[in-house]
C-alpha cells in the first residue's frame, strides 16, 4: 500500500448525499479479477452518456457535460469533497480502487458508510470526517474558486484552506500509523500469531464443533 503523509491538491465537489458504491463503480466492472484499471469507469453512469462495458476503451465515449469530474477546472483532482453517508450500500472494495485509480487520495465528507470507510484505509486513501458546517463552507469555497486546493496533513490531522484556515480531524492511531508508513496490516497481525493460536486452542476446547467440520 502506498503511504499517505500529506497532500496539497485540487478539490472536486460531488454535491449529493448518500452516494452509494453502485454509483462509484457499477456492477458490470466488478467482473475484473485485478485491483487496478477501474479509474476510467469511476462514476460510470453519471460520467458518460452511454452504457459502459467492461474492458471497453473509454476515451471515445460520450461524456456527460453536467458531471462535475468532466469539468475542465477539476482535471488533475486528488481530493473529493462529498456529502453525508458517502459510500453506502455494497461492500465492494472496487469503489476505493476506482477512486484511487482515477487519482483520488483523499475524500472529505461529514459521514461515511462503515464498510467503505474501512476499505479506504486499506488502500492508501484517507477518508476525512469534518462537520457539516465546515463541509458546507468547503463546498462554497470550491464552487467559488477555480483551482481551489486544500492542504491535508495526516501527521498533524489537519485540513488547511487557501486562506490559512485550519480544521482538525480524528483518526484511529493504528490506522494512522499504517497509512503514514504504508504498512501491510496482515504482517502486523501475524506478529500476534501466538496470541491467535492460543485463542484458537481455547476456542476449540470450548466449542469443538466449530473445527474440522468443513472439509
Amino acid at each position: 500500500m502506498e503511504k499517505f503523509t500529506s497532500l496539497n491538491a485540487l478539490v472536486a465537489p460531488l454535491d449529493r448525499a448518500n452516494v452509494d458504491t453502485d454509483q462509484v463503480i457499477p456492477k458490470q466492472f466488478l467482473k475484473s479479477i485485478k485491483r487496478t484499471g477501474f479509474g476510467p469507469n469511476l462514476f460510470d453512469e453519471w460520467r458518460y452518456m452511454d452504457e459502459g462495458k467492461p474492458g471497453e476503451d473509454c476515451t471515445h465515449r460520450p461524456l456527460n457535460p453536467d458531471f462535475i469530474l468532466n469539468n475542465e477546472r477539476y482535471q488533475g483532482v486528488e481530493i473529493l469533497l462529498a456529502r453525508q453517508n458517502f459510500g453506502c450500500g455494497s461492500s465492494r472494495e472496487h469503489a476505493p480502487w476506482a477512486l484511487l485509480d482515477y487519482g483520488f487520495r483523499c475524500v472529505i465528507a461529514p459521514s461515511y458508510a462503515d464498510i467503505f470507510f474501512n476499505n479506504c484505509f486499506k488502500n492508501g486513501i484517507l477518508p476525512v470526517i469534518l462537520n457539516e458546517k465546515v463541509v458546507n463552507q468547503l463546498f462554497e469555497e470550491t464552487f467559488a474558486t477555480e483551482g481551489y486546493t486544500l492542504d491535508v496533513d495526516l501527521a498533524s490531522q489537519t485540513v488547511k484552506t487557501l486562506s490559512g484556515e485550519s480544521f482538525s480531524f480524528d483518526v484511529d492511531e493504528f490506522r494512522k500509523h499504517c497509512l503514514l508508513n504504508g504498512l501491510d496490516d496482515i504482517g502486523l497481525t501475524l506478529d500476534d500469531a501466538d496470541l491467535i493460536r492460543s485463542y484458537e486452542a481455547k476456542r476449540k476446547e470450548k466449542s469443538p464443533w466449530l473445527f474440522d467440520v468443513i472439509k
Partner: protein
Amino acid sequence: MKPRTLYDKLWDDHVVKQREDGTALIYIDRQLLHEVTSPQAFEGLELAGRKPWRLDATLATPDHNVPTENQEDGVAGITDPVSRIQIETLDANCDKFGIVEFKMGDLRQGIVHVIGPEQGVTLPGTTVVCGDSHTATHGAFATLAHGIGTSEVEHVLATQCLIQRKMKNMRVEVNGEIPFGVTAKDIILAIIGKIGTAGGTGYAIEFAGSAIESLSMEGRMTVCNMAIEGGARSGLVAFDNTTLEYLKNRPYGPKEDQWEQAVSQWRELKTDEGAFFDNIVKLNAADIKPQVTWGTSPEMVVAVDAMIPSPEDETDPVKREGMERAYHYMDYKKGLAITDIKLDRVFIGSCTNSRIEDLRAAAEVAKGNQVASSIKQAMVVPGSGLVKKQAEKEGLDKVFLAAGFQWREPGCSMCLAMNADKLGDGEHCASTSNRNFEGRQGQGGRTHLVSPAMAAAAAIAGHFVDVRDFVRKQSA
C-alpha cells in the same frame, strides 16, 4: 457482572487482543467466499507468499455471476467471457488452496447467504464474514456477521482475524401481532423508512420484540439481511427455540455427541436484563402495512395504499434534494399513487427473499392466476439448489410456470444484474431484492422493493396492488 447485550457478548467472546487505541483483533470463525470479491484477495495472499491460516473455517461458492439458465453446462456454459473467467478463477483458487467450494452444478450451490445457514456453516455464537454487505443476514442466528472488503477477505484468509473497533448497540423493537398480509420484508422496510439509510451507521442492531420473535428463521434472515440498508453492518436476533429447530441436522452443524453442549452455550446468546443500548427504536407491528419503495434509496418507502411522496412536502433540504433526484430518475408525474405504478418486470429472488418460505408465499398468490400480459418478464430465482429442489418437491415450480412466471436456477441474478438477468432503460420492476439504487438492476432500471407476496400480486395485476385486498378477493 455488568449486564451485557447480545452484541457485547459476541464481541467479548472473540477478542484476541485489545489495542490501546480502541481497536481490537477479533477472531473469525467462518468466512464465506464468492467469485466477485475474492480473486484479488487470493492474488494478494500469493504475492506475499502466504497460505490460508485455516481451511476448515471457509466455504466458497460462485453466485453473483452465475447464469440462471442451463447451469447443467457448468462454467463452460457461461457465455459472457468476463463472468466465466471470474468463476474459473474462484474454482482455481479454491482447488489450489484446498478450500471447500460448491461449484456450479453442485446441488448445494447457491447464494452465499442462503447456503451458509442451510448447511449449518452459520452457527450461533460465531463470527461470520464475507466480502458482501448482505452478510448481515447471518445475524439472524445470534451470530456476529458483517460484510468486509477484499483486503479484509485476504486478512481473514491469512490470519483468521480482523482488526475492528467495537460498534455501538442499537435495539429495534417490533412488538405485537404481525397483521395479515404483512411479512418480514415489510417490517424491515418500515424500519428503514423510520431510521433512514444511515440511521444504523456505527451500530450493531439487535432486532427484538414479540413480532420479531414470532418470525421464522427465514423471516429473521430477511430482516437482518437489510440491516445494512439501514446503515448497520450487523443485524442480530437472539437465540431461541426457533433457531434451535432450524439448526437440527444441518450438514456442518454440531454432531449428536456435541449437540447438547452446543445448545447449552447457545442459550446464553441473548441480551441480559438491564443491558445498555445507545439507541432504542420501537415500532408497533399493527401499524405496518405492505411496503413499496418508490425512489432510489431503500429509505424512500411507503405503504402500498399511499401516494408517492412529493419532494415539496419535505422540510429537510438534503432529503428533499434526494427525493427530487429520485423523482427525475423514476420519471414520475405529480399526484401518482403507488398502485398507479405500471410494471415491466418482476423479480422474485435474492439473498433477501429466495428461501423456501418466500417462494411458498409468492406461489400462494400466483396459484390459479396469470401474469398480466403487460409484464415482459416475471422470474422466480431460488436461493440455492436445495431450495429449488424443495420447491419442486412441493410443486411450486408448476404453480409458477402455469401462472406465466419463469422458473430459474439459483444465483444472485437480477438483484444486481451481473449476469444476463437485468432491467432495460426506464423499466419498472417489482423486486424482492434489497437495493433500489439508480442502475442497480440494469442501467436506467427503476426498482421497487417489495415482499414476495406483493411481487407476485403485482405480476398478476401488472401494477402494484395491496396484497391484502388481492388475497381477500381471491378467497371470497
